[in-house]
């Protein structure tokens, strides 16, 4: 006699009873058997309500990694039966040391997104159920790695990558700010230098493309059939175009004690080469030691007022931006291309103010409307 233990079981307990029933059944259970025999399902007030409940529960179990398989019940009906194979869902033996568990616990704090935290907490519950001792945090004491939030696009993109399905979204282009709808086949998402990127095949352009996820302006919608494409083998950094630019050296003159962060990766120009730069240094102008204008003193003064450093860089515009940011405390001597790009930034910045002679109060708005 089916006698559910309580009149209205909560969903977790109903799911638990479904799992136990479908694991222990001899061959399979039909839907009707589930409805009449498994605790919680006889609560369904109608056929439709039962169908919805059962379908939702199967989806939830699949999402947890407990697939409900469908089998023919044999005999003369074509009714389907359901069961769960423990072999299909069991975790292979995994023998984690306390230190390794400690590392995994730290990984659990790595994500800022709710969906990813849920994923990782589930993984931890499963691993903790598999035994092992208590985690030990000693190995990584004091460390707290984390990555910035991916955002809402993560869920649908992961689902699409798993099922090899296409997605659409609207995207704001960086070069002109226009928002367009994109149709892509997602391959991978990656975090580099504080940004999240979607690597994919762009169906509109018929070419591989990288999108910056913070510029996706709509919900990501999954469309089309599963297994619609294959994901090729590729290197994240190659596709992002990073680690490509070779390391080059710039030569800069820096005021003593200034540009500390740049100094941290720079080194002084070798003694033999210093002389070549001394003659090209700016005078220690603007508030150096009083009257260093004496011609005879010029070279010595220049030498005293500036350190000459060699700085490695990969990106010309990045190097120029950094150099310009130090203002009058740093002068780029070489190469000429970096020097010119630095001057371009400084010139643009100098134009932002009202200037000493023009005093127009409406200037900022007016002169800035078009670049």
């Amino acid at each position, binding site marked *: 006699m*089916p*006698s559910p233990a*309580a009149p209205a079981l909560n969903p*977790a307990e109903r*799911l*638990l009873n479904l799992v136990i029933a479908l*694991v222990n059944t001899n061959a399979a259970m039909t839907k009707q058997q589930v409805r009449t*025999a498994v*605790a919680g399902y006889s609560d369904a007030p109608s056929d439709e309500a039962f169908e919805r409940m059962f379908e939702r529960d199967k989806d*939830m179990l699949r999402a947890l990694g407990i697939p409900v398989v469908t089998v023919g019940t044999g005999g003369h009906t074509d009714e389907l039966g359901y069961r769960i194979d423990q072999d299909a*869902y*069991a975790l292979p033996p995994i023998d984690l040391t306390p*230190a390794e*568990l400690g*590392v995994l616990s730290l990984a659990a704090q*790595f*994500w800022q997104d709710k969906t990813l935290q*849920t994923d990782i*907490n589930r993984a931890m*519950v*499963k691993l*903790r*159920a598999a*035994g092992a001792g208590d985690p030990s945090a000693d*190995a*990584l*004491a*004091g*460390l707290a790695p984390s*990555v910035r939030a991916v955002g809402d696009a993560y869920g649908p993109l992961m689902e699409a990558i*798993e099922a090899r399905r296409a997605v659409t979204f609207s995207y*704001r282009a*960086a070069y*002109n700010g*226009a928002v367009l709808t994109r149709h892509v086949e997602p391959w991978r998402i*990656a*975090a*580099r*230098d504080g940004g999240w990127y979607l690597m994919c095949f762009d169906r509109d352009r018929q070419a591989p493309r990288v999108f910056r996820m913070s510029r996706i302006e709509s919900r990501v919608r999954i469309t089309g059939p599963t297994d619609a494409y294959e994901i090729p083998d590729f290197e994240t950094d190659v596709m992002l175009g990073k680690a490509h630019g070779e390391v080059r050296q710039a030569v800069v003159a820096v005021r003593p004690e200034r540009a*500390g962060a740049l100094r*941290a990766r720079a080194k002084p120009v070798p003694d033999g080469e210093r002389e070549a730069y001394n003659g090209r240094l*700016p005078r220690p102008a*603007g508030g150096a030691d009083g009257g260093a204008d004496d011609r005879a003193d010029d070279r010595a003064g220049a030498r005293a007022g500036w350190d000459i450093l060699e700085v490695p860089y990969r990106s010309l515009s990045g190097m120029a*931006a*950094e150099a*310009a*940011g130090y203002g*009058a405390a740093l002068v780029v001597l070489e*190469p000429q291309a970096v020097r010119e790009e630095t001057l*371009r*930034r*400084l*010139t*643009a*910045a*100098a*134009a*932002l*103010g009202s200037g000493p002679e023009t005093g127009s109060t409406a200037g900022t708005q007016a002169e800035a409307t078009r*670049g």
Partner: protein
Amino acid sequence: MAERADDRLLRLLGIVAYLDGAGPVPVADLAKRFGTTPAQIQKDVDALWVSGTPGYWPDDLIDFDAASIDRGVVHLTEARGMTRPLRLGTREAVALVAALRAMKATGAVQADPARSAVVESALGKLTDATGEAASAVDVRLAPGGDRQVVAAISSALVAHRRLRIRYVTSSDVVSEREVDPVRLHTQDEYAYLAAWCYRAAAPRTFRVDRILEAVETDVPVQEHPGVGEPSAEIDFAALFAGGSSPLATIRFAPRARWFAEEVPVESVRNLPDGDFEVTLRVTNPGWLRSTLIQLAPYVRSVAPRPLADDVAGAAREALDVYGASSVPRDGATSANHH
């Protein structure tokens, strides 16, 4: 807040699978293992006790030793076959593996062979068990600064010793400080040292790539109440804090969009022509001046006027220095100089 049904189901199944191999376990230990409260474990045990195979006669049910429960110990006597721990789903494996791979590549882990080894072995066992390439997500964090600096910080954190550091601020001012290290956050493109700073007599966060030198002293760290409560998140709001600082409004061309994405701003307004306008609090004028010069070709306007003049003035001063330099403007290089 009500717990989600699927999360509770995972724990219910987890408890049975774990107890099947573990023998009697105190309620408190179970609570700790599964990250919940003893009261919740009691409820879980009550729910398990009445669950089982259809029929639900006593022999059909999951069973516990009642006498043990009364002593606060959970002793499973019948598992109804639910003895196998669940395998990790694809998304779960992805989340774990991507985090571990990112951790493995950080300077703080690389700096210490013992740490590298334990992260490596955890990663190996995990990928063995999941059998997934898990390459759907690829995260790389900041390299984390100078190797010797990172090594000194890591070592001081483990040994609980004070550090002496030389630090350059974002306004380009160098100072020497003694600090008690609390935590090394690696977040995205930068690593940060959270510490008690004796110079400021207050908790401070230092960007590791701006620490020019770090030396571990033999002075043990002291207790500083309220400093470094476990929190993986960096309080960017506090780093850029200051509700009373003046507001600035800057209009950018589209190419500078990263500014709105990476700098904590009060608001962003997208304009019809693709430009965008951000409003932010000026808590660090030196940093803002330097950043606006860097981005100047993409800056359309800066308000209020004194801020714009400050940026332009600094740029003009720099242009004067370049003008005074004797480098020929036709692009001669050192190779053919002299």
